[in-house]
């Protein structure tokens, strides 16, 4: 038996170079052996914990102080996580208290930056500040005015439309936790929308995905976002039409 196992190990070691898929797991009877079974359980546990993780607004707000921008705390109409998961429509809208808060901050600006939990608060807790430390100074150097930074609980991507419209911002950037997979539970997405207003759909946005230490680095992501911001203001649009120039990002 050991000889067979050794043969298998050499064979699959070679195959595993070409894929991260769970191949060559071996078997006991018809089942996956305990070690691999528990490795799978751990990956799923990380993903589940990420779905139920909470936005660390205290720590995020503290870290955001260095940008010298007002910070506002907002909440979607989804009151709690279980509701959020079943009612995407509620996660896209601000609750009434949040709308009032934004009214007191109304002054025209170029860009509003929104940080929302999405499907993994862990992702933004870990990755949002690192990205903004590179991106915000770039935007400011370019002479763009930035609205108060908005921290949103139980938010979906389209909530940036409500916020952008309420603050009369010309462009909205939302950093949001992506749906956790087994290979990564801390993947952050950035969505950029020109002239944000309620009722827009995904084709009006540009998305930069998989922002995390082992995916797209903060530096690479900031570069892509800054490029898209400049193009968006130049061409006065975002979304599918802007994507045509994505080739320019490949340097």
């Amino acid at each position, binding site marked *: *038996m050991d000889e*067979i196992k050794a*043969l*298998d190990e050499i*064979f*699959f070691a*070679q*195959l*595993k170079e*070409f*894929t*991260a*898929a*769970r*191949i*060559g*797991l071996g*078997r006991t*009877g*018809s*089942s*996956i052996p305990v070690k*691999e079974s528990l490795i*799978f*359980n751990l*990956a*799923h546990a990380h*993903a*589940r914990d*990420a*779905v139920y993780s909470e936005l660390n607004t205290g720590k995020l707000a503290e870290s955001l102080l260095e940008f010298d921008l007002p910070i506002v705390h907002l909440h979607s109409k989804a009151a709690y996580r279980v509701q959020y*998961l*079943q*009612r*995407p*429509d509620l996660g896209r809208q601000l609750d009434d208290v949040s709308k009032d808060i934004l009214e007191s901050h109304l002054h025209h600006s170029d860009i509003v930056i929104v940080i929302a939990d999405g*499907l993994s608060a862990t992702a933004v807790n870990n990755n949002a500040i690192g990205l903004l430390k590179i991106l915000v100074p770039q935007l400011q150097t370019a002479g763009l005015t930035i609205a108060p930074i908005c921290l949103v609980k139980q938010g979906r991507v389209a909530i940036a439309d409500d916020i952008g419209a309420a603050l009369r911002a010309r462009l909205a950037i939302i950093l949001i936790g992506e*749906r*956790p*997979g*087994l*290979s990564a*539970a801390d993947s952050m997405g950035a969505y950029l929308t020109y002239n944000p207003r309620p009722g827009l759909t995904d084709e009006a946005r540009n998305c930069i995905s998989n922002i995390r230490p082992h995916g797209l680095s903060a530096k690479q992501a900031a570069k892509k976002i800054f490029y898209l911001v400049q193009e968006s203001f130049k061409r006065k649009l975002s979304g599918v039409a802007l994507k045509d120039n994505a080739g320019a990002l490949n340097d």
Partner: protein
Amino acid sequence: MAYQHTIGRRVYKFGDLKTLLAKASPYRSGDVLAGLSAESYEERVAAQMALADLPLKRFLEEAIIPYESDEITRLIIDNHNIIAFNLIDTLTVGEFRDWLLSDDTTAGVLQNVSTGITPEMAAAVSKLMRNQDLVAVSNKIEVVTRFRDTIGLKGRFSTRLQPNHPTDDPRGIAASMIDGLLLGSGDAVIGINPATDSLAEVGNLLIMMDALRQQFDIPTQTCVLSHITTTVELIRNGIPVDLCFQSIGGTEKSNASFGINLALLDEAYDATLSLKRGSIGQNVMYFETGQGSELSANANHGVDQQTCEARCYAVARKYQPLLVNTVAGFIGPEYLYDGKQITRAALEDHFCGKLLGLPMGADICYTNHAEADQDDMDNLLVLLGVAGCNFIMGIPGSDDIMLNYQSTSFHDAIYLRKVLGLRPAPEFEQWLSRQGITDEKGNLNSRRNAELLNKMKSLWTK
């Protein structure tokens, strides 16, 4: 027409047939999201009682989506077989449920009546059935299809080997294929979900899979699950296309959101059929469906998601497909919230598909934001195995690294075959034995065939 049912002193009214169907549906998050679900437990049962008293004939008189505005409705009405329907034309929906479960209603009877049943009748009767009833009736039905092997025979259970890779790397895909074949997977199809819809890349994957199939003389078929327009283009370019795949919806508008219509499907079907690549049969289409896709495309016309799903099967059966499967748990918790809802939906879809004459399989799956885990999938696996499901997916370790969701593993199929005494498609079973992958009893060999491993190894060292 309005419908009503009285419970005690309370009269429940339902404005039309689609409202009655929606209110009678077992609870699921997607119908709540759509604003169609019953408001209380009592209202749901009242709707089910009203539905039970409804003559099946009513479904031929009241279209839930108007004939004039939806080509799927036209397909359903125009293709309805009134002679087959004669077997059940005096029954109410409730009587139909009892009739389906009766010992006198055998596999042969169910086959004869199949084209007389509309998707809405199937959906309606399923709403009066418990999970057990759905399993019991499905278990009676045998739907057999053929291309290079025979799928769906009683006592047989097949798998789609799904060797996905996030960048479509042919070597990575081949690695998962080899792993699956060595674990006895792939008799329904070897089917890749491509990361891109690029003609050149999809073409290369098809050429690679076809070469591998021929080199090892595997009695199965291969498929890249790209859009039908891509597949038709590849056929024109002379690429080896065994099966034509498409995701389909139950309304004209939802199909438009997939970029398809019946005319395009006709064209793709004819093009694939013209290649005559099947050795023992010419079932050349492969369809995927799933509850909630109509609502997510804003194309549900106020019809509940399970009834919309059943209407997909009218589209599918027009093309005598080799394979059809529901992807119940893929869409997310806003449509099917937890393991209970996913299980129910998969059993309903399998039942309705089989009743309408389709070779139904299932992608037993969940996403990480659904309230579900491996235990839920284990339960559903056994239920579908007992129900006589034609095939499930086979994915390395359950983890699809391209689509980021969990489905069934190669091991799951080995387990199910063992505990339920099920066997692979006969031609594929013989192949596994010839290659020394299984022993004379059909069990996986604990010893590897060194010659086979060396041959497979040479794929990488060339």
